[in-house]
Every structure is written in structure tokens, then in C-alpha cells.
């Protein structure tokens, strides 16, 4: 009954709220029980049910009626609901807006705080300050009234003082004794931060966290002394279930591309690995993997980064059979042959403007099905190449792009990862469609000498009628002549990508320059490797350019 009444209030105010925020694409909020994630089941009691006013789960906002009752008499219900919804909507429309921004803010906060929980807290406070300030500045809102009436801990008091200063609105926070000097200094620092300038959020959150750090550490200590988790945010927590699976997927991809930093990405993914696994997010989408499976952050990094370089799925080409058949009509002109005239559509008349003639076309059908061939990737992981698990390896990224392209076209990929192969420094993965296994093989790093063993490669090529080869190396291979000889004997399409100019590369180029099936690319900047790989693949996949 109560819930219905509140729901009616929400539905009545929703069109106005939507208009106020320029029509965000979120559904009508609901009224219902909100789970306080900061309290475990044993700690759940009456008061825990009333702590959180708003929950946002995959864009669905839920107002907690129990929370509303705690502020009865201090604020009207309508104003309170509107304030909570204004806050929630602004999280969607302004900050953090997407998962990538959230990750970025968290990562920056962690650089200052050093540990996951306090970094999350700092990021949450920062996000809330931005959302509330944006709302107060740009829209008519009851958020200040809400803050005036909320119960506050030490950090919340400082935040409220900050709001007083930057909004110019009295929230009832008055100076209190000896703590005031320290607090005033923190507020002074916090007030200088340009919260509403999105382009500076990276440096702003660092400043914010730096200033708030002592208070956050103190609060953490007090929490630990109390033996429980901290007080929950009445305006709702900011965690993973704000975002849908796809938003997380997109966010990780954008974050990988933005940072281009393996260690940064790894750190963030490892910090959130529990939450990601609980949402069923694994490397390959989590289906059937279940909880408890470790997410390899390095592999995930290359996967997400390679997605930014992908090319789309190629449609299966139709083979022309070679025979002509009547297809459509075109007007007959004087001088053009008679034999294809269609008497029926010409009404029995032979005259320009009336007579129609058949246009014939080659028949199309699926004669021999030409799919995309499989691909063998030969990747060099000798000491002269970058360790992909330590820093971004464009060689591995290029190989990842090739992998994606072939897998998307329903082909299989095999990997020959070599260093000093005769001494055992090699990893062979047979043809497979399992993306994770392929990436794992690509990311393996030996760091030793550089020598191929053709005995390893031959079984992978034998028996394969159509096969593309990609070799990515710096060409400083001790048995280069053997490789050259081998390539001279095979007819497969080969793309060789080598980094930098050196005598070995020149030797290789010279030796194979007459072979039409071998394309060599010298890459001056490592960043060009993915583009080169994709360029070759585009050429291969476009039937117009087939040279078989």
C-alpha cells in the first residue's frame, strides 16, 4: 500500500524529472527493498534496512521506502524522492557515465591511496561530489536539502562543509572545536578542484584523494577497530551492478585502449576480479565458466585491446558458375542485337521505347564453398622481443588481431611461439577455435635465443590445403637461411612482419622478393603492427584480391 503510494508519486514526477535531465534513457524508478551491500547477513538488522535510500542496478533505480521514513518530518517525501532521483540520474548522465570512466577514476584514486577499499571509497566520494555539484549548478534540485538532513560521519561532515563552500548554500555545518582547523584546511583544498570539468577528472581525483587521505585512513582504522564495514552511502553505493555485462565489456575495452598500459590494466582487473567473476564475467564471456575461475588479466588486456583493431565478419562468397541465363530487361536500342528481344514484354512490337531485351547474367550458386583458410601464427618471443606480460607487446597485439580476424570468420588458428626452439624454448598450439588458449600461447615469453625448428612447423602445415601464415619477428633468427629455404618451397600466403631495419631483415627481403605469395612489412614504429596485419587480412578476405 505504502509502496504503491510512493510509486504513484514517482510516476507523477517522472516526466518532469526526465525533462529536467533532458530525457535520459532510463526506466521509471521503482519502490522496493534495497539491500545494503556493506552489511553482511549477520549484521543485517532493522537499522541496516533503512540506511540506503537509492539503489541503481543496470539503470534501474529503486527507492527504499524504509529510508524515506527516517527523514520524515525533515523533508517532504516528494522532495526527498526527487533529490535521490536527481542524484541517481546524474550518475547515469554525467558522472561516471560509463564503466571506463569509473575504472579510470578508481585507478587514479588507487595511485594515491594504495589499497583497494580506500581507493574505492575515495572514488565513490569523488563521484558523488561531482554528481551533486553538477545537479545543483545545472538543475533545480532538492539535493542541498537532503544533505542538510542526512546523518553524517567524519568524512561526510567534511564533504558537507565542502558543499557549503562550493555551492554557497548553508547546510547547517558549523565549526566544531579543535578539529575545525584541520577540517577547514581539507575543505579549502577540496574547494579548489574543478569538479565539473570532465577533461580534468584524472588530475582532480588525485588531488581530491590526496586531500581526503588522512580522513579516509582514520575512518578505515575506526572501522577496523569496530570490527565491521563502514556506514553505507544513503545515496547508494557505486559498484559493478550499476553496469550491464555489455557496459563492463565495452568499458574494459576502452580502458585497455586508453591506458595502453598492461600493468595498469592488470592491477584494475585484479582488484575487481571478484566482482567480475560474481557477475559471470570471464575472459570469454563467462558462460559456463562459473565462479572461482581465475581471470588472466594479461590475456584479457590483449583481448580487449585487439577488439579495437578488429575487422568485421566476411560474408561467404558465392561462386559464379559461368553459364548465362536471362535475368532482367533493358530497353532495346536501334543497332543492338535482336536475338535477346523479349517479344512478350515488347507487346509484339519492334520499336525503340517499347521493345525490351533480355539482359543475361552468370548464374550464382554455391559451387565450391570457399571459406576463410586457417591460420598459423609464428611469433618470436626471444630476448630481443618485449615480454608481453611485463609491457605492451605490439607483436603480440598484431598476432591477436590476426587471431580475432580468423576466428570471427570461423577459421582455426594454430600458434608456434618460439625462442630457442631446438633447446626447448617453444610453445606449440594445434589448430583450435579456443580464443583463450590461443592468447595464452601468444603471451608466453621465453626470452632466450632465436632459432626456429622446422620439424615443429611441418606437422602444422602438412595436410592443410589452404593455410595462411603470419610471422612476426625482428628477423634476428640464427637459422634464418633455413627459414628462407622453407618459405621458398611452400605456396601458402605468408605475411612477414618484422620490426626495424637490420641486415637479417634485408637478407630475408632480398631472398624472397620474387615470391608472389610472400608479403614482407618492415615496421618502423611498433604501433603500426596491428594495422599492417589487418591490412593483409583485409586483402586476403576481399574476394576481389584473391590471388589463388
Amino acid at each position, binding site marked *: 500500500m505504502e509502496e504503491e503510494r510512493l510509486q504513484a508519486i514517482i510516476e507523477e514526477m517522472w516526466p518532469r524529472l526526465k525533462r529536467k535531465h533532458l530525457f535520459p534513457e532510463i526506466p521509471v524508478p521503482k519502490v522496493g527493498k534495497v539491500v545494503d551491500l556493506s552489511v553482511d547477513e549477520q549484521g543485517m538488522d532493522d537499522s541496516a534496512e533503512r540506511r540506503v535510500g537509492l539503489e541503481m542496478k543496470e539503470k534501474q533505480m529503486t527507492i527504499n521506502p524504509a529510508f524515506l521514513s527516517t527523514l520524515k518530518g525533515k523533508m517532504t517525501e516528494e522532495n526527498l524522492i526527487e533529490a535521490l532521483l536527481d542524484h541517481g540520474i546524474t550518475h547515469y548522465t554525467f558522472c561516471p557515465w560509463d564503466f571506463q570512466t569509473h575504472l579510470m577514476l578508481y585507478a587514479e584514486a588507487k595511485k594515491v591511496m594504495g589499497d583497494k577499499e580506500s581507493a574505492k571509497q575515495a572514488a565513490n566520494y569523488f563521484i558523488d561530489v561531482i554528481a551533486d555539484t553538477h545537479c545543483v549548478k545545472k538543475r533545480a534540485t532538492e539535493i542541498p536539502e537532503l544533505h542538510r538532513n542526512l546523518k553524517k560521519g567524519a568524512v561526510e561532515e567534511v564533504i558537507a562543509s565542502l558543499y557549503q563552500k562550493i555551492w554557497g548554500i548553508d547546510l547547517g555545518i558549523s565549526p566544531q572545536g579543535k578539529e575545525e582547523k584541520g577540517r577547514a584546511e581539507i575543505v*579549502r583544498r577540496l574547494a*579548489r578542484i574543478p569538479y565539473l570539468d570532465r577533461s580534468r577528472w584524472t*588530475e582532480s581525483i588525485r588531488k581530491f584523494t590526496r586531500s581526503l587521505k588522512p580522513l579516509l585512513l582514520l575512518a578505515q582504522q575506526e572501522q577496523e577497530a569496530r570490527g565491521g564495514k563502514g556506514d553505507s552511502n544513503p545515496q547508494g553505493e557505486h559498484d559493478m551492478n550499476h553496469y550491464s555485462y555489455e557496459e563492463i565489456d565495452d568499458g574494459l575495452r576502452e580502458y585497455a585502449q586508453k591506458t595502453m598500459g598492461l600493468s595498469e590494466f592488470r592491477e584494475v582487473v585484479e582488484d575487481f576480479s571478484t566482482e567480475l567473476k560474481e557477475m559471470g564475467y570471464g575472459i570469454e564471456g563467462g558462460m559456463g565458466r562459473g565462479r572461482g575461475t581465475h581471470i588472466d588479466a594479461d590475456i584479457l588486456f590483449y583481448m580487449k585491446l585487439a577488439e579495437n583493431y578488429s575487422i568485421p565478419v566476411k560474408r561467404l562468397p558465392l561462386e559464379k558458375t559461368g553459364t548465362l541465363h536471362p535475368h532482367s530487361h533493358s530497353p532495346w536500342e536501334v543497332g543492338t542485337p535482336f536475338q535477346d528481344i523479349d517479344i512478350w514484354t515488347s507487346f509484339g512490337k519492334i520499336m525503340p521505347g517499347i521493345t525490351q531485351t533480355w539482359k543475361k547474367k552468370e548464374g550464382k550458386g554455391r559451387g565450391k564453398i570457399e571459406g576463410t583458410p586457417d591460420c598459423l601464427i609464428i611469433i618470436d618471443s626471444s630476448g630481443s622481443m618485449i615480454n608481453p606480460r611485463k609491457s605492451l607487446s605490439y607483436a603480440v597485439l598484431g598476432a591477436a588481431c590476426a587471431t580475432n580476424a580468423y576466428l570471427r570468420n570461423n577459421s582455426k588458428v594454430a600458434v608456434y611461439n618460439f625462442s630457442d626452439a631446438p633447446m626447448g624454448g617453444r610453445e606449440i598450439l594445434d589448430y583450435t577455435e579456443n580464443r583463450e588458449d590461443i592468447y595464452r600461447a601468444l603471451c608466453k615469453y621465453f626470452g632466450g635465443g632465436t632459432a626456429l625448428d622446422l620439424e615443429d612447423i611441418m606437422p602444422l602445415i602438412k595436410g592443410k590445403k589452404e593455410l595462411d601464415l603470419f610471422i612476426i619477428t625482428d628477423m634476428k633468427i640464427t637459422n634464418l637461411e633455413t627459414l628462407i629455404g622453407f618459405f621458398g618451397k611452400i605456396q601458402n600466403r605468408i605475411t612477414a612482419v618484422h620490426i626495424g631495419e637490420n641486415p637479417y631483415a634485408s637478407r630475408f627481403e632480398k631472398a624472397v622478393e620474387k615470391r608472389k605469395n610472400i608479403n614482407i612489412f618492415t615496421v618502423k614504429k611498433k604501433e603500426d603492427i596491428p594495422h599492417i596485419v589487418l591490412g593483409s587480412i583485409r586483402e586476403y578476405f576481399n574476394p576481389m584480391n584473391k590471388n589463388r
Partner: protein
Amino acid sequence: MKNGDLKKKSFHPPVSKPNTFSNPFEEFRTFHFRKEEIPLDRIVQSAEVVMDQIRLGYEKLLEEEAKELVWMVQYNTIIKAYEVAEKYIKEIDYSAEDIEDFCFALENTQKIPYLIPGPAGIYISALCNYAKEEEIVLKLSELKTEINLIGFRLPKGKRLMVEGDTGDFTGIGLEGGEMVIEGSSKNWTGAGMRSGKILVKKNIGLHTGEWMMGGEIYVGGRVRGLGNIVEGKVFEREKLVYPGKARNPNIYY
């Protein structure tokens, strides 16, 4: 041939002057944006203005003192640079937080193209010395580079607390002020200081107190080496190491 009945609509083109174009923004003519300002806008804007002034002062210092971006640490260059810095700083109305922001702005090459550690440190020292506040806290633990020459001529009555590590010549020429370094400092800490107190919570480098004329240096961690101290005291982990048992300068432990 029978012509089809073409319906001709009567069409009167609008009477218009030659070469007149209709205003594509006409509908916005009456829009008037009432810019809502909150105190945050003013605060941020004034902080930006001050930062620009401080940045300009630094650039002028570099122009005058670091020709071709080379600057050698010598007694006379330090004095000269400080005088130039003073000249520009006196005209700026800034706060302690502006100094900290400037320290971070130095690392951002988009804002400040050149970070030359010597003049930068002198400039920051001048900013600290002329700040209105008696106590200045600089939270520099996230800075990637350590600032040299910080605390130069810090006067009596001023307290400078640095969270993080500092570079060479920390507290050089201290003139009665108090410096607290929440991290470590490098070499020549307290060189030429006349009076005052330097407290380094972690470790300190070589040539500590070189030509020190007075004052005290407290080190919470290890002292890598002492310099030629004229007068004053140096404490290592609350134990007096100078004046103390005869000890050669720069003992390498």
C-alpha cells in the same frame, strides 16, 4: 502525342532582396542563457588565474636565469635566481595550496614545458617564504621527481611540511624556519643553514649539513654521510651524531 494533364501549381516565389540569405539561427534569436554560477566557479577561476601568474613568473625566471635551459648549482646562481624569483612572486596573491598545485603542474609538460630542478626549487622556496600562511603543507608524495633546493632561506616563524621525498639541497641556507620532511631527502641537506630546524623522518643522503652555521637537523632514519659542519647539531634516530665522537665526513655505511 496527347500530353498528359500536368498539374501546374501556381507558384509565387517569395519577394526577397537579391543576395539575402535566411538566418539559419533565427529561432535562437531570443534565447538568453542565464549562466548559473556557484562559488565553485569563482574559486576555480581565481585559482586558475593565480596559477597562470605563478607559471608566468617561473617562465620569466627561466628566461633570465636558465639560458638555453642549463643552470649550474653555485652560490651566486642560487642567490641570483632567488632574487629574480622574489621580484615576480611579490606581485602575486597566492595561498599555500597554490604552491602545491604548482609543484604538480611542473610535471605536466602541457602546462609547463620545462622542469629544470634547480630554478624550480628556488622558485618554490621563494613562494613558501613569501606565502601569507605561517605553516605550509605540501603533499608531494605522488610527485615523480624530487624537488631540489626546497626550503632555501626559510625564515623564522615559518613552518614548511613536505609529505614525500625531497631532492638535493633541502633546507639550504635555512634562516630560522622549521622544515619537516615526511619522507627522505637526498644530498647536501641543510647545507649552509644558519638557524632553524630540519626534521627528516626517513633517510638522508651525503654531505649533510655541509657548511652548516647553526640550527639542528633531526633524522629519523639513517644519515648516509655528514658534510663539513661549522656549527649546529645533527641527530640520527634521536642520537646526537654531530658534534659527537670524532667522525670523518661522508662515512659510507
